[in-house]
């Protein structure tokens, strides 16, 4: 399980980073969302992988931390997902404005001198 999880994070991060290094704004926005998946999974994994742990407290079983999934990384990631959405929206609008203003979708706002 752990090795699959680790590889998943690696593939997401690698694809995301490759896209971030591309010259077109749409590639960068896709790269950002892939990298965001990778980072969110990574933070989430800080609570370690456990199967079958209850996420919600069952009053009948008491509140022994060993019984439940780690809530802190979950709270962090939940925040990160929402903020990531906001970032994506902002970036999308900036890239649209840049495209409208400069007539190009290159990340530098102008076509490179030689491609």
């Amino acid at each position, binding site marked *: 399980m752990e*090795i699959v999880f680790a590889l998943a994070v690696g593939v997401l991060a690698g694809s995301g980073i490759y896209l971030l290094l591309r010259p077109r704004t749409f*590639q960068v926005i896709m790269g950002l969302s892939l990298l965001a998946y990778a980072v969110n999974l990574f933070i989430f994994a800080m609570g*370690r992988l456990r199967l079958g742990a209850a996420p919600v407290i069952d009053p009948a079983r008491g*509140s022994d931390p060993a019984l439940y999934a780690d809530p802190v990384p979950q709270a962090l990631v939940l925040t990160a997902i929402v903020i990531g959405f906001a970032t994506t929206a902002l970036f999308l609008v900036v890239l649209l404005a840049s495209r409208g203003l400069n007539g190009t979708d290159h990340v530098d706002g102008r076509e490179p001198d030689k491609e």
Partner: protein
Amino acid sequence: MALILIVLFPFLGSLCAAFLPSNARNAEAWLAGIASFASCAILLGLYSDVAAEGVLRTTLPWAPALGLGISLRMDGFAWLFALMVTGMGTLVVVYARYYMSPSDPVPRFFSFFLAFEGSMLGIVLSGHLIQMAMFWELTSIVSFMLIAYWHNRGEARRGARMALIVTGAGGLALFGGVLLLGHIAGGYDLDTVLAAAWVIQGHPWYPAALALIALGALTKSAQFPFHFWLPHAMAAPTPVSAYLHSATMVKAGVFLLARLWPVLAGTDAWFWVVGGAGLCSLVIGGYLAIFQQDMKGVLAYSTISHLGLITLLLGMNSPLALVAAVFHMVNHATFKASLFMAAGIVDHETGTRNLQRLSGLYRAMPITATLAMVAAAAMAGVPLLNGFLSKEMFFAETIFLSRPDWQRIGLPLAATLAGMFSVAYSLRFIHQVFFGPPADDLPHTPHEPTRWMLLPSALLVMACVLVGIFPELTVSPFLRIATDSILGSDAPAYSLAIWHGLNLPLFMSLAAMVGGTVLYRAFLWRTGTTVPLLDRIDGKRAFDWLLTALARGAERVMQRLSSSRLQMQLLVLFGIALGGALGPVLMQGTSWGARATTPADPAFALLWLVGAVCALAVAWQAKFHRLAALIFSGGAGLATSLTFVWFSAPDLALTQLTVEVVTAVLILLGLRWLPRRKMNYATGQEPATTTRLRRLRDVLLAAACGLGMASLTYAMLTRPDLGGISPFFIEQSLPRGGGLNVVNVILVDFRGFDTFGEITVLAIVALTVFALLRRFRPAPESVPLPHQQREQDAAAGLDAEHVADPAAKLPGGYMMLPAVLVRLLLPLAMLISLFFLLRGHDAPGGGFVGGLVLATAVILQYLVGGTVWVESHLRIHPLYWIAAGLLSAAAAGTGALLAHAPFLTSRAWHGALPLIGELHLSSVLLFDLGVYMLVVGATILMLVAIAHQSLRSHHRKTSGGPP
């Protein structure tokens, strides 16, 4: 407490002055005068305490845990200097009241003037080296504002900038110097440092500390070779020059040298650095002063020369020379300030300061002339005036120098030469302005100024005379407590007398008098504008050249080392991140941990096989097939969501899923504004080799980073969980948060403040998106409808210009059926979103998820019904939702304040109501409701703003102009 008031009064006055109306000249002057005089009066009152106790200290704790506080310390020397600063400040305020023109913005002047006075007092009274360096910087900055007071004049701006750069750079050096000094001494308190003289001088860092501190002091005091800024600072209003460039700012440097004299002086290095700079300034400044054409120019160079004298005295490593130096600091302040005032009066009444145009003013302004003559005589060192006394002490010191022969003979000669220069320029200053035939081509007809303008100058001249005739009765006790406080038990016995008998210093004085007069008579009738011998050496030119060279060099370095290209910056960023992570691994090695792994599940592996393929496909297709890339990215997101479910995080899975939907819609809406990609491969054109190499490089870097992330994740996953703070939240969730869903309790209760910040960010982003899109102008090629839409419209029999009928019950055409479905869906979605919101505290759900669900349902209406149709049937005001959400969350927080609990403390009420039954109400629900409403508002605002663009460009096309 009194010490704090001394420093505080000018700053308070400065603050008040800044808010007075710009024509309140009298109110300003009264305020400034009272603030200065109040500090001065407190100082006078403290004299007996200082004389009796030696040192007064006050410490105001600021951050006691870090050992930080405001530490003030006043000994005799600081007292004398502070008295000079405040006393002179009061006099200059009176003078400035009549000097400044009614059209000048006076509040700015007095505000900065008082701020300067406060900063200067801060330097003088600081008991802590770093605090002193801070006030030191403050004087540099405020003096910049004062020199550039008439900022519409180019010379004022240039002079101010030069002064700021030179003294600011010196300040930086000084800061480094005091850091070294404090480190060597083992503390930054002045008392600690002053007690560590032996440690400091024996330390290998002593030369560095000395050099840096000397750099700070010499730049501030306009000493050779940094003297060139002072003449250019003469573009300041004359009251500023009278205050800053005679008594305070330039004296800060010599003050510091004297302050640290006990710990730094006594070495050869000190002699050469400080004494050498002093001697050069003394001679060169005096020589240059002779040839100036501007009255203030003469005074500026003579200030350089006299400060050189003080610096030289400090550099001579003898206690008696130190006494002479402190004495000359006071004397120079009195006569130089009064001379500056005289120059200002002449400028004010005649309209010029040019020595060649001025002549014969004695008849028109006899009082001014008399005052200037006495002050100039003091500057020249004429007997019975204060300048004579300190100059005699200086001459005496040069003779008794215990150094090798050539220095013992050379120094008195140089001193006599400088004395001659001093006599010559003083003579020229007076003779050219006040004597000779009356000038008839002056801009104004000269006459005496108002009495109040003469009063400050007269008081200073009176001080010169009184000190000159009765030194023992007037200045002696004050001078003695000052020098005693510096020298301690080593203080030498001395007497301030006019007559010491016929001795060598007296002959040197006589030689200077006669030589100076002859020099003036013989050579200086001529009115050349060039300076013989030294004309080619111009500090300003060197300074300008240096600045230009620095700017050019920096530009070149930037070109080499930096890039404005995002790709290059990101490449470097990831490269460094990779290297930074790889370095420790390669050096120390690493291994996987020992934690038992969970058994592998083929389904999970399959899930991520799909996920990985999706991720790679995004990377592959994002350039040419945007829609495909977006779909694949959704696939990767889905795999992420499922992973969250797999490992017991239902809240995350829900949020991820809804965000996924909203993001996809958002990007879909944006897609149509992006340019068509030219497909090189479709035309058979191969990409260039450099492009391929670049891609290969990026692939390798990305693969390395991905591999790194994977190994990091695996290394972390195989190590045991350290627990951390999670058990606290799990244990306290029910008893203190009243909720079973720990994640939700953390978000809305334990860490509610973070969430409050987060939703605020979300609101700001939504508003930014909205604002950015209001000015959005699409590229011309994106304006026509996409061809798919045109084809569909044509198939449905609609013309290209059709507009949806807002009055129709249902959208017409092929969208009718889906429209019926999504209309039925809307109330259901509302119900579900409320369900998620309400149960969030005890079961997966919450404000975020609920809000996103509702937003999705609304967007669906837009997608299917079209913007025009939806908005004619359903008015949503996203801005109101955002505002209501923020207010609701804030109300939930402030409610706690009313109950005297910290912000966002949750309050709950549990009881039973008729009809409804048992009910649990909590402020947390109000907070979560705020989150819910804000998420709905922000999401809809963003999506609708983008969706409206199509409509706007449609309008633009049909009506021929922007809506």
